[in-house]
């Protein structure tokens, strides 16, 4: 359970494609392994069954062939007995008649026979083919085949392979034979006597039957008699020489069917088949390594196919999962772009229907958002412009009110010249203020405006101060925001000079500093403490104005920054009792350039 949770947790951290690939692959691999294991097991079972059946079939076939061969030999023996011996009176007919008939029989079966012979019950030869002269050293009655024939007279007896050693053989050829002997009844002068018929079968006949038997790569068949003596073995001579070993003594007691045995460290499957009449046993030997190698090859082939199938499935899984996951990934990437406020990001519409639908919806949503954002920006810009206009428009009523108030006061006091001067200055002031509705005017115009203003104020303040305006010629045509210097001069008058008894002085300077236009308004008023400067700059403690145009320090700074950016604005230098200097820093640009720039911003 914990493992499952761990896997689940781990999968949750992985990508969709990885999860899909892994899941599909794991399921496919498990299924394929189970199938391969099942088939492999079936291969093994069927291979073993096939091997057993094959061995049985081979042994059956071999048994049939051997049976035919032995039957043939028995038929020869029967023919000798029933067709020749039974029809012959050896005393009356003589051995020559028998010999002639035996010769015919021998010639007919020469390929499988070495000799056929008849012996009397005391071991004397009566007739034989093809050779008839016994070796002097031979005593047939002492031979095993003779003894066995006489022991069980009703049976046919098959010997183990031995070298035929009865007859004199002038060509020095020694044959390996299997002897078939039986006891027979012969007629001699009308009397029944016992004798023995011997059929020496050429061992090559049995060998031919056995040697081409196919029992797998290293399997073979051998024959043992009931005592476990070898009748035939493909390595018979080597077994006799002690070079090769066989488990034939033990195999002789095996029952018919299949057995497993381990001999000299080798596990072998033994199939046993009993040969009729003889008591011989056919023993089929199949090393299990032969059987296992057959199914190992098949199993290996199966597993290789399974591995390639797994590889193919992995490939297909990766391909399919990438096809499924990629559109989702692209969608996710697009959403991330949107999260980064890139509303222009295009959302690819690929993949399945559901994903395409989702992408379309998202795209539509993004487009709507962008439209809304654009609308908000336009609205905000419009609002800002309105504010700017409002700020500028704040100047006129206040100043007009104050100036007109002064003029009224002058007329009331019959100071008509002064009133004329003020009205003239006011008229000029308004002309510049209007400036055809432009926000940007030249430094020269602004300074003229300031001078007109100072003329008016000087009258109003009864020449309590003097002023001085200086400007470098090169900056006169540079751009400045309309009514940006005048409020500073106004502040100098109201806050610096108003409460002075006399000798007030206001200096206005315009000059170029590096790439900037600097306009300074300096007074010799009471000055400000550091705290006051800080309060002024931060806008927190600006003294409440009761008079003047109402356009303060912040108004000017806001307008400069609104128009030219935050790199520009106002600086204040002041010391108590030393006076105050306010420095306006503006870009050194022409009116046209400023208007262009301003359009971009406003």
């Amino acid at each position, binding site marked *: 359970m914990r493992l499952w949770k761990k896997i689940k947790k781990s999968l949750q951290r992985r990508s969709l494609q990885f999860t899909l690939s892994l899941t599909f692959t794991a399921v496919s691999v498990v299924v394929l392994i189970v199938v391969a294991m099942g088939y492999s097991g079936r291969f093994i079972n069927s291979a073993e069954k096939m091997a057993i059946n094959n061995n049985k079939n081979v042994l059956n076939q071999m048994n049939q062939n051997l049976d035919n061969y032995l039957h043939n030999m028995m038929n020869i023996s029967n023919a000798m007995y029933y067709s020749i011996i039974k029809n012959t009176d050896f005393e009356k007919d003589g051995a020559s008649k028998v010999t002639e008939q035996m010769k015919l029989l021998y010639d007919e079966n020469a390929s499988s026979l070495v000799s056929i012979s008849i012996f009397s019950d005391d071991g004397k030869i009566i007739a034989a083919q093809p050779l008839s002269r016994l070796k002097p050293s031979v005593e047939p009655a002492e031979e095993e085949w003779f003894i066995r024939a006489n022991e069980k007279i009703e049976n046919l007896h098959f010997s183990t392979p*031995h070298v035929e050693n009865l007859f004199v053989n002038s060509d*020095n050829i020694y044959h390996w034979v299997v002897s078939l002997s039986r006891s027979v009844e012969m007629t001699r002068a009308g009397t029944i006597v016992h004798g023995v018929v011997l059929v020496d079968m050429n061992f090559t006949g049995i060998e031919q039957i056995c040697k081409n038997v196919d029992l797998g790569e290293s399997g073979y068949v051998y024959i043992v008699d009931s005592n476990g003596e070898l009748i035939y073995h493909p*390595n*018979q001579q*080597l077994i006799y*020489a*002690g070079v090769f070993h066989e488990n034939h003594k033990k195999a002789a007691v095996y029952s018919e069917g299949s057995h497993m045995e381990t001999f000299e460290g080798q596990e072998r499957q033994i199939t046993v088949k009993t040969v009729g009449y003889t008591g011989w046993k056919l023993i089929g030997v199949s090393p299990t390594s032969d059987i296992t190698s057959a199914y190992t090859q098949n199993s290996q*082939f199966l597993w290789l196919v399974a591995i*390639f199938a797994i*590889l193919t499935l992995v490939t297909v899984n990766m391909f399919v999962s990438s096809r499924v996951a990629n559109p989702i990934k692209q969608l996710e990437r697009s959403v991330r772009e949107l999260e980064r406020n890139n509303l222009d990001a295009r959302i690819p519409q690929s993949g399945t229907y559901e994903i395409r639908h989702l992408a379309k919806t998202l795209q539509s949503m993004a487009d709507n958002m962008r439209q809304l954002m654009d609308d908000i920006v336009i609205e905000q810009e419009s609002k800002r412009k309105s504010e700017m206009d409002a700020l500028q428009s704040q100047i006129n009523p206040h100043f007009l009110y104050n100036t007109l108030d002064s003029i009224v006061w002058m007329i009331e006091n019959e100071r008509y010249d002064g009133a004329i001067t003020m009205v003239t200055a006011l008229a000029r002031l308004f002309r510049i203020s209007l400036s055809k509705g432009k926000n940007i005017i030249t430094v020269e115009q602004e300074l003229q405006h300031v001078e007109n203003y100072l003329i008016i104020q000087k009258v109003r303040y009864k020449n309590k101060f003097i002023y001085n305006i200086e400007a470098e010629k090169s900056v006169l045509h540079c751009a400045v925001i309309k009514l940006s210097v005048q409020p500073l001069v106004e502040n100098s008058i109201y806050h610096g000079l108003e409460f002075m008894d006399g000798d007030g002085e206001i200096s206005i300077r315009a000059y170029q500093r590096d790439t900037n236009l600097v306009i300074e308004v300096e007074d010799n008023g009471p000055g400000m403490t550091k705290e006051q400067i800080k309060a002024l700059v931060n806008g927190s403690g600006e003294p409440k104005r009761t008079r003047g145009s109402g356009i303060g320090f912040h108004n000017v700074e806001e307008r400069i920054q609104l128009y030219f950016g935050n790199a520009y604005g106002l600086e204040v230098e002041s010391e108590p009792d030393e006076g105050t200097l306010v420095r306006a820093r503006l870009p050194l640009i022409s009116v046209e350039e400023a208007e262009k720039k301003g359009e971009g911003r406003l």
Partner: protein
Amino acid sequence: MTRKRKSIILALGVCAAAGVIAFTALPHRPETEEVYQISYIYRGEMPEGVQQIILQGMEQAATSFNVELTTVSSGTPADAKKQETLLKKEVDNGADAILIESVNSDDVRKEIEKINSEIPVIEVNSWTQKEKTGEIHKVHADNYALGQKLGEKILGQSELSEGVVLIKSGTEYTDVAQQYKGTKDKLEASGISIEEVKVGADEAAHSAAFLKLMRKPKTRHIVAFGSAVLEQLGKVKQEEPDFNSIAIYGIGNTNQIINYLENGIIQVIGVSNEYSIGYLSVRNAVKELRGEEPENNEIRYSIIDASQMYTMENQRLLFPFVQ
């Protein structure tokens, strides 16, 4: 999809496709066992007698171990130079291993040692003697013990007061030399008078030499080593009824010798299991080729007279059961 992932998918796809094609298009062939070319350099002009049986054993092993066997005669008489040349020639002909019934010669030994560093060389039946070396693998019976056993048998046979004649021929081959020495040592140890008669390599001259030898009244017991000499000795005795009283003993195995044994021409023969020698020599060569350690198997031998010929054990020794 990244380029890397595409490459992986492509590689897996190609791999899977190649595998499927390989398994569907190519037939499944079982591994074929390597066929070894092994040359057998034997003594004499033709593989006869013992060499014939050795060759039969070799052929059985050749069938079992997938060997293509080439037989090469080193001629008569034994010629070390010729064996040297044949060794080089077989290497040049691309033999994977060489089996040689070598002449006991230093030159042959050196050549064998030289070749043995490249391909396995097995000395079969006869070998080159060198003190304190056992690097060259050999397959042979204990010929000295066989000689001694024969000597023992001779000692038990009959009256040996007139001594025993040992035919000295073919002792340039170690097996014969060892058999000769074993018999001689045994007889000498029993104080039997021994006459050594050397016969040359010329087989045509043997009959006359043996006839002359048998006509000597003193000659009553003759011992010969090697099938050809023993067979010739038997032939000479068979042709002259006066020689019936002469006892012939020897080591060798041909059908004619067995016939002489059965018919009392030859009294006793010593036989080793040459079939096994042939089989084991090929098997050991293959084992060496496969990088396995060759096995040392004892080669059986037996001393047989006419009465024991057809015991099951002697039958199997005298008449190899050749499939």
